[in-house]
Structure formats: structure tokens, C-alpha cells
């Protein structure tokens, strides 16, 4: 995987001319360094941690979170926030479970079912975006509402009986391995690469970045910002949808609660990786490093014998500490924080 350090250099080789400062700031370099250090510490402390199979476990465990983080990173880049992951993931998890071969009905749509579920998720994401730009609902509230809508849709479809998946394709994703890693993990890697390419090489990605940097400048340049915001939320919804499908594959069943906790976990990962909540900084690779950091931490704490009951609290402390560290350079007197 490319390191986030490379995210700040451009792809086209520049001419032979004195170049202005384009180095990597500590804020960009920090998370990867922290990842290496953390990995080293756990490897030294725990023989169980440093086995090949455990490293595979860590990567497999990071897969779903990485896909959610891809989606949320685009939203955070624009300076908005997205809390809709649990609802959208729940809706897509139940939908896919009911569309592929399952024990509740005679559907057997296979890959088409997966595409439909992701499409539904994208539509829910689009709804957040529309509420934001048309009704001017703050993203915080809009996405919280859409999350509730998603959970509502999921609950309706669930109808009290859990759909167990018998589709070989979907089941295979979780169990079959390639080069030691589950197919799900490879899917997650593909998502990261696609998201990175979108961030780097598409107008959508660059404008998302610019919206977080200085939205008014875009407007003054004659760019209509609203469609890009809607597109960003739609794209994020699609990623959550795929993540919901992945959870269904792991569990072998569609659950309303498939996405529980992923909103906070993904925001944690993105922030720990160096994506600013105020927008305009960080990106996909930053968030991916954040995902690995969080996953290594979770796994490592278990390996060195810390009670799993401690983990939730520890994760919460880490996100607050990471945000505090990220805003240190911008702190000033009488700053208003809301």
C-alpha cells in the first residue's frame, strides 16, 4: 500500500526547475510512524502478536472498517460529518440477504442482489446530501436522520425472522482466501485504491478537497458546489452499502445491527489517520492508516492481555487525544469551539 506521505506529491513529473516546499509535514508523517511504533511495541511484548497468522487476522479484521472509512473520508474532506453508516449498513445488509439465495424467500440474484443493495445504500446517502444542500439541514442532523431511516427500512425488511444467507458467492467472500487473506480483505484493498483514485484523479475528489479548504472560493470561481456535495454523500453511501454486504458475508446472515458502532469507529480511524474534521486535510490513505492503527491497537491490547471490557473506553480516549493533537497548531486565545 502506498504511504500517505506520497499523497502530497503529484503524479506528473515536474520539470527540472527549483521546486517550492512540497515536503511531508509532521502531521502527515505522524500516523504512519505511530503505526510502525505501535506495531513494534506489540510485537516486542507479545509473541502471539508477531505471528504471520495474527497479522493476517489484523488485516482481515480491518477490512469492513476500511471500506466504511473510505466513504466517510470523502464527507470529512468536505468539512461535513456523516453519522449515517449504521443505518445504511443495516439496510444494505438485510437487503442483500433477502436478494441472494437465503432461507426466507426464493430469490437468488447473486451479484445483482449485491449491486441492488449497494444502489439502495447510495440512494440513502444521496438523501443525506439532498437534505444538506436543499433543506440546509446540518450534515450532523441530516445523516443522523438518514441513519434512522436506514434502520427503519432494515427493521421492516427483517420482519422478525433472520434471513440466513446460503449464496455461495457471498459466503465465499468471508471464508475463501487468496495469498493468505480473505477475499473480503482484497475487496477492501480494491475499495481503498478506487477511493484513492477518485480522490486524486477526479473532479469530484478534488472538489471535495477544495470544498473543505475554501468553499466560498469555489463559488466565486463559478463552480456550483451543491451537486458535488450530494455526490460525495452518495459515494459515501455506496461504500457503507458495500460494507453492509461484507458484514452479511461475514455473519452469514442479514442483521439490522450490522453497522452498529461503525460510525464512531470510522470517524476515529479517519481522525487518528490525520483527516481533519474541519475538512480540507487528509484523505483516503490517511484514513486507511488510521484504520490499521485502530485495528492493530484493538488486536494488540487483546494479545498483551488487556481486558476487552477496556477497549471501548480506550478507543474513545484515543480519538479525543488525536483531535487535540491535530488542532494544536491552530489553537488561539478565545477560540470558539462548538
Amino acid at each position, binding site marked *: 500500500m502506498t504511504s500517505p506521505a506520497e499523497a*502530497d506529491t*503529484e*503524479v*506528473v513529473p*515536474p*520539470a527540472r*526547475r527549483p*521546486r*517550492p*516546499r*512540497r515536503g511531508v509535514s509532521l502531521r502527515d508523517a505522524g500516523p504512519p510512524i505511530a503505526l510502525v511504533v505501535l506495531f513494534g511495541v506489540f510485537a516486542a511484548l507479545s509473541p502471539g502478536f508477531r505471528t504471520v497468522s495474527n497479522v493476517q487476522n489484523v488485516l482481515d479484521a480491518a477490512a469492513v472498517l476500511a471500506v466504511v472509512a473510505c466513504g466517510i473520508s470523502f464527507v470529512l474532506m468536505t468539512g461535513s460529518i456523516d453519522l449515517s453508516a449504521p443505518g445504511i449498513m443495516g439496510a444494505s445488509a438485510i437487503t442483500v440477504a433477502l436478494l441472494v439465495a437465503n432461507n426466507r424467500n426464493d430469490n437468488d440474484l447473486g451479484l445483482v442482489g449485491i449491486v441492488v443493495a449497494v444502489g439502495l445504500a447510495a440512494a440513502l446517502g444521496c438523501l443525506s446530501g439532498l437534505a444538506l444542500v436543499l433543506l440546509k439541514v446540518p450534515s450532523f442532523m441530516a445523516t443522523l436522520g438518514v441513519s434512522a431511516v436506514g434502520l427503519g427500512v432494515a427493521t421492516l425488511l427483517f420482519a422478525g425472522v433472520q434471513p440466513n444467507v446460503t449464496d455461495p458467492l457471498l459466503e465465499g467472500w468471508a471464508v475463501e482466501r487468496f495469498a493468505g487473506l480473505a477475499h473480503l480483505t482484497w475487496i477492501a484493498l480494491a475499495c481503498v485504491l478506487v477511493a484513492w483514485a477518485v480522490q*486524486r*484523479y*477526479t*473532479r*469530484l475528489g*478534488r472538489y471535495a*478537497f*477544495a470544498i*473543505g*479548504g*475554501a468553499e*466560498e*472560493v*469555489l*463559488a*466565486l*470561481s*463559478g*463552480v456550483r458546489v451543491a451537486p458535488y456535495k450530494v455526490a460525495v454523500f452518495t459515494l459515501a453511501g455506496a461504500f457503507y452499502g458495500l460494507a453492509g454486504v461484507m458484514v452479511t458475508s461475514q455473519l452469514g446472515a442479514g442483521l439490522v445491527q450490522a453497522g452498529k458502532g461503525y460510525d464512531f469507529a470510522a470517524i476515529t480511524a479517519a481522525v487518528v489517520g490525520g483527516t481533519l474534521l474541519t475538512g*480540507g*486535510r487528509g484523505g483516503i490513505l490517511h484514513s486507511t492508516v488510521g484504520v490499521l492503527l485502530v485495528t492493530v491497537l484493538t488486536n494488540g491490547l487483546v494479545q498483551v492481555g488487556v481486558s476487552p471490557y477496556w477497549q471501548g473506553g480506550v478507543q474513545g480516549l484515543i480519538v479525543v487525544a488525536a483531535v487535540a493533537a491535530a488542532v494544536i497548531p491552530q489553537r*488561539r*486565545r*478565545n477560540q470558539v469551539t462548538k
Partner: protein
Amino acid sequence: MTTNLQTEPVPPAPAAPPALEVRGLVKHYPGVKALDGVDLVVRQNEVLGLAGENGAGKSTLLKALVGLVRPDAGEIWVRGERVRLRSVVDAANHGIGMVFQEQSLVPNLTAAENIVLGSEGPGVRTGIYRWSTMRRLAQEQLDKIGSHIDPLARTDSLSFADRQMVEIAKVLRIEERTSHPPVIILDEPTSVLESQEIETLFTQVRRLREFASVVFVSHRLDEVLDVCDRVAVLRGGRSVGEVSADAEPADLHRMMIGSTGSDDHYHEGVAVRSDEPRRPRLEVRGLCGPSFRDVDLDVHAGEIVGIVGVHGSGREDLCRALFGAEPTTAGEVVLDGARLDLSGTRAACAAGIGYVPAERKTEGMVGPMSVADNMTLTKQAARCTGPIVRPGKQATLVDTWIERLRIRTPHRGTAIQRLSGGNQQKVVLARWLVAGDVRLLLLDHPTRGLDIGARSEVYRLMRELAATGVATVLLADSLEEAIGMSDRIVVMSDGRATAQIAAPAGAKPTPLDLVKEMV
């Protein structure tokens, strides 16, 4: 030069119509007439200066020219064709582009992206970036102005001067939209530049004149006269005339401020004078902060001291630092013989310092709250009414001050945002007076955005407070105001207090005396 005369009634133009013409432009804002019938002609291939004091209507006019403000009346003609500009894009399609005063680049994008932003053309196909094309497009623009900036450098890694080049390169993109020579508006382009960079900019402006018309706005009159072919002057939302490039800055300034009439606009008649030497109420010694160094400053009781300086002189930060709102690194401040704790605003309030911030709407008042609550917002005022707001006591106190300051409000319970700017400002001032122990007032642009009548009221109030012995530090909105109101003027430049000029009533310095010290 191509002309475009086929539409509408033919204008009364000879062979080449002006690149841009404004006729009788009017724009009202609630309580203020920002533009009151402005006429302006920009000829082809000329650099036209636009001068006027703060509030003369310059920025409103410029915004109207790029479609950001819809005028209430009046016409805009481009090359002999009447146009309606509804947006920046509209203006660009007619060949009008503006380099905005506050830098309008996206800091976290590359220079190339900023240059082509909003009109990427072949740089983006079906939503996919072509970085090499993007780079080439930007390079073409940078070549036009002979700049050697790396198009793929992140904008926030460039110097201010380079960013300005990027902005000019960006605004020249409008050449792609129209076959006519463009009109480029530069709004205060020199305010963030060093003198050497300014020279480069001027070279650039003269180069632009070869293929475009330029409107150049600056507060520095010598600059305007240096680079422009002619200078149009606005005052109070009207065009009051123009001067040619060989005019003296003094002539230009006289035109900007109008006849300094005999009416006592600044209430100098009531100014108090006391000649007995005594210890200053405020003594600042060697104060260093974020954008100022080694500042010494004395203010006596009853004295109004104006601090003047160009953008970046550090005077705003100094003012805030005295109130404990900006960190200081060295030096000390003594108020009435007691060393002042600068660690925060609480200590400053407790010591009897009042601060009226420049941003009234965001820092000076709580818009939806009532006049009464805004007036008694400070801890000191709260002491007068007790920890639990006793409506009766608060009402008596507030009503007294509404009457004393002649605040026009329907009721003390009216939301402050419904008052006019002048009355809002009086409430903000009253906040420091209700506790009755204010010793030093720091006024940061107290008349910003106020019309002449309201300004005069604020001036009267300042005089009355000075008469009661309050020491005042004033960051004035204009040089004229600084001269009119101050007993003494301190000039700041590059973070240092570089000169002191006495300004007693009857022996006032001229603006040029100050400008000489400022640059």
C-alpha cells in the same frame, strides 16, 4: 480592437466604446446608501485607479461589476452593450474578472487547479483529471504574466506574492471565454506585499495594459498615482471626479475626503485639554506579541490616542493584546500604577478595561439577545444586578443608559440585531459603562459600517467619556477620523510604533503627514 454594436439602442459612443461603463449605479443596504448614482468609465488599454475612503462605496461598486451585488438602479455597459451581471460567471463571460482583496485561492489545491478552477475545459474529461493537460493550461496562463511558479505546487506553500501571481493568472482565464480584451479588477492588491513585490506587481499591471483594461484599487495614494493612467474618486457612494496621473497625492486626498468643512464633525469643541504633567494612566513598555514588537505607548486619563498603520502593521493585535485577547511574549503593561495581568480577558475586564471589537456582529454583540442582556453581559455588570438576574434592577440600570446614550430602541427587551448599526454600537459601548468603573477603552474601528449621523453620535460619546477621565485607544476607520478624534497619534509600521504625532485641536496634522510615516 473589435467592437460589438449590433444590439440595443446604439450608445452615444464614438469609434471605440469604453471597455466598461457604469451609469448612475445605485445600491441600498438597510440604513445605508452604499452607492448613490455612481458613474465610471474604463477605457480600453488603460489602468484606471479607483480611490475613496472606507465606506465610499468602492467595494460595493466592484462587487456589482463582477455580479456579486445586484444594483437597485443604474446600468452597466460593456464595450457599448448593456449587460446584466447576475454572477461571477456572467461577468467572466463578458470579460470582467476580479482579483479579490482577501486572497481567493483554495489553499489545499495546487496552483494549477486554482488557475483553471471552474473552467477546467480539457483539463478534466468526464470528471477524470488530466494532470498533464491541467499543468499545461496553467503553464500557459503563468507564461502570459512571465511567472516561474511551479503549477503543481500546493498553493499554501507559495509566498503571498506568488499567490497573487496565481490569482492574476487565474483571472486571465476569462480570455478563454471572450474574444474581447478583458477588464481586470485588482482590489487592494498591494496590501499583503513587500515593497519589492509591489514593484513586480506594478510591472505586471503595466504588462496587463498591453492587452487588457485594469481597474486598480488601493489605499496607498502614491501607489495609485504611480501605476494608473487616471484615478476616479468616490465619496459617500457618488463619483466626485477624477485626477490624472500627474496629480499630487494631496490633491487626490482632498478630493477623497471632500471639503473639510467648518462643521465640528469630530466635536473638537468639547475636547478636554489638560497640560499638567502626570503619570500616564496606561503605560505600555516593550510589549511583544504575535505581530508587533517592542511597543511603547502612553495614554493619559481623558486622552484619546489614535493608532494608525496599514494592513499588517500589527495595531489590531496590539489592541487585542492589551485586552488579554492575544498572547504576548515580552514587555509589561501598567494601568494606573498597577501591573496588568495580560493572561486573559477576565483580568482586563476586572482592571476596568473595555474593548469594542471591530467585528460588531460576531464579536461585539449577541444578535438575538435583548438590548438589556447585551448591555449587562460582562461580569462587572452582572455584579450590579447580582448573580440572579433581577429584572427590576437590570431594567432601571439599562433604561438609564438607554436614555443617557440616546439609544433609539423600541424597548430594552428588543433583540439587538433589530437596531440600526449606530444604536447597536452604543449598546456595545454601554456594556463597559454600566459597571461605572471603566478606566481605559480600546476601540477597534468603532464606526465601521456606520453612516455619517451615527458616526457623529459615536464621536460625541467618545468625547463625553474622555471628559469624564476615561483614557481611549482608537483604531480609526480612516486617517481623517484618526486625525479628527485623537489628541495624539501613534504610527505603527511592521509591528513597531515608529512615530508619535501630536494632534491637539486647532493644530491637526494632515493625512499626508501620517502617510509619510506609515510607509
